[in-house]
């Protein structure tokens, strides 16, 4: 279009379009704007726009038009690369560079765009042997040596443009190059050109650092080169021979560690380079922007590893030099706020990068000063972080730096056997002390004190979404806990002493309040300040104690930390076991009042300090002082007890090389201590559930403690011997206060715990009795209720509804308690309910929340049990799910949902149904059942053929869900994801069922796939593409032509073909799309040839035609004729990549 009109017309057209785009929104209409945008778009797509663009650049005065001209050149060069004469490319590059040099006053964005075009040309040329772009570095170094700041800045911009063009992978798809192409360019670049850039940069920095004073302009240039150096040192060096997939993954990593190739050895092991960066930092450290860059450069140097080091000696020398430099830099300066994070990055990088053997090979004195410096720095950052918290600063730089350093300590001490014995004890004591000090109130600590010692105490509103400190600060606490173990001799007694003291004070304070309340009836006079200070102290002491004494590993048996075990063993000779047990067993008494309390085991004493806290709390509730207590402290106590119980209760001696006598005597299996503590914990749980029903989080933590007590068979065995346990079960079954006031999640978990307890060891009579107390009432009440004659009339009454809801919640809880060894009895129990539940679906069809809960029961049962069920049982479940779906479908038929714009949770039922179907499907890939092994003895194998299969149920369900899933609903992410997960699962698992679907359903399924492929997120698009191969394979298997599926796949062939060949697509998708395309091509070879023919016949240009034809030929060359064979498929995918890189961009030309 553009070629047809003369250059001046083009310019004036573009300039007026630019005017429209730049005009304020009120001045132009949307149509005008769109039209203007269109003009630029088509201008950029025009063929060989080079002459016009040059003309524009030389004559136009409108910046935006200049910018677009540069963009057009860049896009066209890549698009038409193979058609262009190499010499004209070269002259184009020279033209652009000269253009920029001659116009120092260009707008920044125009200049950057032109330089980007230059960089793209250099990059595209770097793999093309016929063109040499190396001269650019020579030109740049000349610019730098000019001494003119403006020219030097320009030189820096050129280098920066080159660097970003070669470094980042997200630029790749923009110019239609494959990851592999990108990778190769990058590898060549990083070997040579990158180092050249680095050398140039270092020279500039050296030059500048020698100058006494820099004027503003100079300092600006300096800053740019410093940033450039940082970019080079943060280069993500691509290792040789990294596959395409890995490249993408590799490029995505953040916080790149410096791992240069061997060729960088000479450059980076030169001490002068590192010295330069220390010097530079010293010079500019007061400028917070520049200091960030210089510290980041040092941090990158501190992370250096890999083949750049010839041997370990070289590493030691390098590290020693680094540490010396660092200590010189830190010592004797007052650290600026802006330096904290940078310095902590340097330390954290060097500790995590250099192997222990290198660290220990440092000269002793140097290592000692380093550890000493690290200790002081950590304590100081910790104090500053606490100040930041008091001042409620938005930008918590010290907190970030403190976190980093604590993390480094964890790395160091976790492998402390490599270091001289005990070398971390003193530092650990210091860091631990300072942490405790920052978290305790005055006078022992400095909590909430501002720098000048003024206390601030604000009560802010905290909502339920805010994380608890134990999660919010879990990383910090883990490090502090670890340091506490290292220095157990100091830290455990310290914590014990502080906690015992606070508990005594709390006890006294509560007593005073009680007397006060009895004297005057006005509770308003209670000053909570003292209490709150005590609660906050206790809060932190318990958190630290919990993290010190035990870990909380997910899914494995937690062990007593070896340091704690050793500490207990070391002192066991001085310990009097009986006094220890007495101390443990009398939480109501003050520890120090027990004679001989100093000859007790310290680990047990720390636990008993928490038990004392718990006892004070329980007594206060009995004295009706609950109002004065802190629910947060209540949470801390049960959280601690749970963590402790998992590790210490019924300690299994077989798991340890050596065991502490006091610990095994107090908590071992078959000990009175263990029995006593189980009883105590149970009592605590029961008390909490009745007193704290109004505190959802505390009730939740409490009931989780209960689950911990019963989820392990050994512990459950003791629990079920307690009378309290039985009382709890009875009370819950009777659904009376206070337990029925608990929130529904807590009730559910309580039910789960009660069921788990039922699988403890009991004689058969007791067991029968237990179930009679726990499960039968549930069944009985339920049956009594629904079998009442007038149930139909009363079913909508709130009281009845609540009873039903409570039952459904309990059923979910029961399902949650499923384990492999109880699944057989729980399944039978739940099955009886499931059919009744379906009846309730009818009754409560107008009460969505009840319907949702009913479906949820099914979802839970399927989720927890299906993987254990054998064929017969699975079938039963499928059948009952099918009935559920039928009822659901009937009730939803023709139902109009109010407020289409309503919230997501109104579609909860749909989401649940899809979840149910996905759970049922999961049987196909997660199956632990051994043909009804867990049910053996209960039933004879039925032998009859399958009546209902998972596929039937799921497809029936899809039949219901599909018509309800409108495009509007797909806008809700959760519904959309669940839906596509479901339908692509179906295509992958039951491709043979797809052709048998009813016509309408089949159609909407195919529509959904198309929609998902073309207009959803890339994740969903990928899912849909993955679903296509099994469908095409299915067609190939049956060899029937003209089936709807066969026809549909033909349509998909065109879609995928267009997607891969004609549209710009996400490179991540090439594999999924390629696999789909290949199977589709196998199936529809003739149609594929036709598509190719049509595409080729549209090409007017003979050169392009030939190039395309060749590309298509080589695409299928390795797989002719295409067959569904893995080897061929892989070959095809490989050629496809070349194909996309070669002609992908070409075909995008309009």
């Amino acid at each position, binding site marked *: 279009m553009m070629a047809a009109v003369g250059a001046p017309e083009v310019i004036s057209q573009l300039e007026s379009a630019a005017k429209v785009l730049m005009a304020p929104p009120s001045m132009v209409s949307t149509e005008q704007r769109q039209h203007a945008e269109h003009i630029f778009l088509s201008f950029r797509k025009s063929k060989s726009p080079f002459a016009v663009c040059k003309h524009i650049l030389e004559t136009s005065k409108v910046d935006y038009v200049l910018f677009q001209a540069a963009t057009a050149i860049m896009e066209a060069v890549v698009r038409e690369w193979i058609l262009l004469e190499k010499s004209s490319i070269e002259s184009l590059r020279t033209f652009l560079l000269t253009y920029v040099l001659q116009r120092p006053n260009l707008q920044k964005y125009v200049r950057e765009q032109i330089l980007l075009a230059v960089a793209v040309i250099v990059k595209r040329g770097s793999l093309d042997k016929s063109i040499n772009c190396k001269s650019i570095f020579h030109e740049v170094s000349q610019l730098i040596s000019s001494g003119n700041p403006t020219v030097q800045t320009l030189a820096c911009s050129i280098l920066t443009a080159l660097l970003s063009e070669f470094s980042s992978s997200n630029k790749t798809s923009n110019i239609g190059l494959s990851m592999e192409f990108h990778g190769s360019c990058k590898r060549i670049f990083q070997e040579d050109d990158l180092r050249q850039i680095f050398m140039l940069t270092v020279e500039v920095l050296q030059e500048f650092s020698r100058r006494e004073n820099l004027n503003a302009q100079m300092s600006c240039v300096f800053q740019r080169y410093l940033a450039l150096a940082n970019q080079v040192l943060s280069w993500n060096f691509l290792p040789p021979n990294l596959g395409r997939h890995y490249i993408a993954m590799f490029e995505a990593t953040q916080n790149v560690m410096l791992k240069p190739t061997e060729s960088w050895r000479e450059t980076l092991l030169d001490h002068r380079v590192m010295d330069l960066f220390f010097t530079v930092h010293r010079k500019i450290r007061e400028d917070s922007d520049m200091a960030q860059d210089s510290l980041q450069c040092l941090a990158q140097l501190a992370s250096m590893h890999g083949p750049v080091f010839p041997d370990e000696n070289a590493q030691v020398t390098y590290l020693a030099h680094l540490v010396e430099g660092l200590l010189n830099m830190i010592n004797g300066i007052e650290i600026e706020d802006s330096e904290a994070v940078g310095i902590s990055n340097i330390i954290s990088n060097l500790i995590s990068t250099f192997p222990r053997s290198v660290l220990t090979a440092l000269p002793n004195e140097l290592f000692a000063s380093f550890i000493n410096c690290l200790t002081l720095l950590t304590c100081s950052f910790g104090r500053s972080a606490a100040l930041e918290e008091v001042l409620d600063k938005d930008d918590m730089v010290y907190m970030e730096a403190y976190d980093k350093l604590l993390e480094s300590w964890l790395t160091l001490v976790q492998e402390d056997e490599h270091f001289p014995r005990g070398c971390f004890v003193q530092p650990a004591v210091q860091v631990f002390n300072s942490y405790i000090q920052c978290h305790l109130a005055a006078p022992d600590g400095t909590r909430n004190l501002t720098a000048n010692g003024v206390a601030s105490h604000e009560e*802010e509103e905290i909502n339920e979404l805010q994380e608890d400190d134990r999660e919010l600060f879990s990383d910090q606490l883990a490090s502090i806990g670890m340091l506490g173990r290292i220095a157990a001799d100091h830290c455990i007694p310290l914590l014990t002493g502080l906690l015992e003291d606070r508990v005594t004070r709390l006890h006294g304070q509560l007593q005073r309040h009680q007397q006060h309340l009895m004297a005057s009836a006005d509770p308003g006079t209670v000053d909570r300040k003292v209490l709150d200070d005590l*609660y*906050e102290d206790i*809060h932190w002491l318990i958190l630290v104690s919990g993290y010190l004494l035990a870990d909380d590993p997910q899914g494995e048996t937690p062990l007593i930390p070896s340091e704690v075990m050793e500490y207990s063993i070391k002192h066991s000779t001085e310990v009097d076991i009986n006094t220890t047990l007495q101390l443990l067993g009398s939480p109501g008494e003050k520890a120090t009042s027990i004679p001989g309390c100093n000859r007790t085991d310290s680990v047990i004493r720390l636990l008993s300090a928490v038990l004392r806290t718990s006892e004070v709390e329980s007594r206060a509730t009995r004295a009706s002082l609950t109002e004065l207590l802190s629910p*947060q*402290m209540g949470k801390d106590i049960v959280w601690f007890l749970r963590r402790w119980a998992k590790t210490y209760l019924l300690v299994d001696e077989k798991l340890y090389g050596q065991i502490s006598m006091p610990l095994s005597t107090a908590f071992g299996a078959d000990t009175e201590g263990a029995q006593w503590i189980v009883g105590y914990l149970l009592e605590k749980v029961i008390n909490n559930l009745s007193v704290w029903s109004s505190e959802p989080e505390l009730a939740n933590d409490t009931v989780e403690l209960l689950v911990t007590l019963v989820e392990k068979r050994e512990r459950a065995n003791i629990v079920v011997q307690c009378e309290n346990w039985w009382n709890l079960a009875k009370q819950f079954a009777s659904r009376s206060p206070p337990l029925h006031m608990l929130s529904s999640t807590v009730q559910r978990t309580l039910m789960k715990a009660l069921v788990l307890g039922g699988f403890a060891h009991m004689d058969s009579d007791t067991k029968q009795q237990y179930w009679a107390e726990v499960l039968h009432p549930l069944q009985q009440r339920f049956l009594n209720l629904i079998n009442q004659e007038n149930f139909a009339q009363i079913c909508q009454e709130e009281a009845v509804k609540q009873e039903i809801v409570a039952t459904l919640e309990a059923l979910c809880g029961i399902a949650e308690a499923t384990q492999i060894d109880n699944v057989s009895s729980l399944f039978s129990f739940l099955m009886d309910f499931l059919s009744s539940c379906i009846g309730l679906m009818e009754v409560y069809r107008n009460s969505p929340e009840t319907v949702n809960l009913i479906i949820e029961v099914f979802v839970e049962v399927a989720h927890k049990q299906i993987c254990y069920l054998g064929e017969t049982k699975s079938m039963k479940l499928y059948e009952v799910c099918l009935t559920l779906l039928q009822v659901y479908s009937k009730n939803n038929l023709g139902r109009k949902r109010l*407020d289409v714009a309503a919230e997501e949770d109104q579609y909860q039922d749909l989401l649940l149904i899809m979840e149910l179907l996905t759970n049922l499907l999961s049987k196909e890939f997660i199956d632990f059942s051994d043909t009804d092994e867990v049910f053996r003895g209960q039933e004879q194998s039925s032998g009859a053929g399958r009546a209902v299969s998972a596929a039937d149920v799921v497809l029936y369900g899809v039949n219901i869900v599909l018509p309800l899933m409108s495009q509007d609903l797909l806008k809700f992410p959760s519904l959309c994801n669940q839906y596509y997960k479901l339908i692509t699962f179906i295509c992958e698992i039951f491709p043979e069922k797809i052709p048998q679907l009813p016509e309408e359903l089949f159609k909407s399924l195919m529509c959904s796939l198309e929609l998902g492929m073309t207009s959803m997120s890339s994740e969903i698009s990928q899912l849909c593409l993955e679903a296509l191969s099994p469908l095409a394979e299915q067609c190939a298997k049956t060899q029937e032509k003209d089936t709807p599926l066969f026809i549909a796949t033909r349509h998909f062939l065109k879609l995928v073909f267009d997607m891969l060949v004609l549209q710009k697509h996400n490179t991540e998708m090439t594999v999924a799309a390629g696999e789909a395309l290949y199977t589709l091509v196998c199936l529809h070879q003739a149609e594929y040839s036709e598509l190719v023919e049509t595409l080729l016949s549209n090409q007017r240009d003979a050169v392009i035609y030939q190039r395309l034809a060749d590309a298509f030929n080589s695409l299928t060359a390795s797989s002719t004729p295409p067959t569904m064979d893995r080897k061929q498929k892989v070959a095809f995918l490989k050629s496809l990549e070349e194909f996309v890189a070669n002609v992908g961009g070409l075909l995008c030309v309009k």
Partner: protein
Amino acid sequence: MADADLDFTTGDAGASATYPMQCSALRKNGFVVLKGRPCKIVEMSTSKTGKHGHAKVHMVGIDIFSGKKYEDICPSTHNMDVPNIKRMDYQLIGIQDGYLSLLQDSGEVREDLKMPEGDLGKEIESKFDAGEEILVSVVKSSTIQMSVSIQTLIITVLSAMNEEAAVAIKAMAK
């Protein structure tokens, strides 16, 4: 094992208008009396003042008759009034002078419910005239009288008996 104090057979006689319930035991989609009005709870969240404070419950409810929004915040230990809501389904057998004739399960016909006003009323009328079978749900919150929710499996309608206004209660249908 059925509890003596759980009696589902008792009719209206003696049923109190409300019964108390601990705030924390209320649940979303349940009912509560806010500012003297029976409401369906549409939002519930908890918060506390200071780290060691006690939980407070924040509730947003929609008046099941007027559709008006009410809010309340109170300590979670607080006892709130829960309205006794009843709901009955009838078949619509006629419309006379703006009143609905409803057939009860027992065979009796009640004619004390006014036709809802607005679009809903018109919709009922046209559906009824077209000969469609219409089910009407009547919602009753003891003293605050009746109201209707209708289902032809398509629409939900409500009307109030003592309070003249007949309104669609979206809150009920959700």
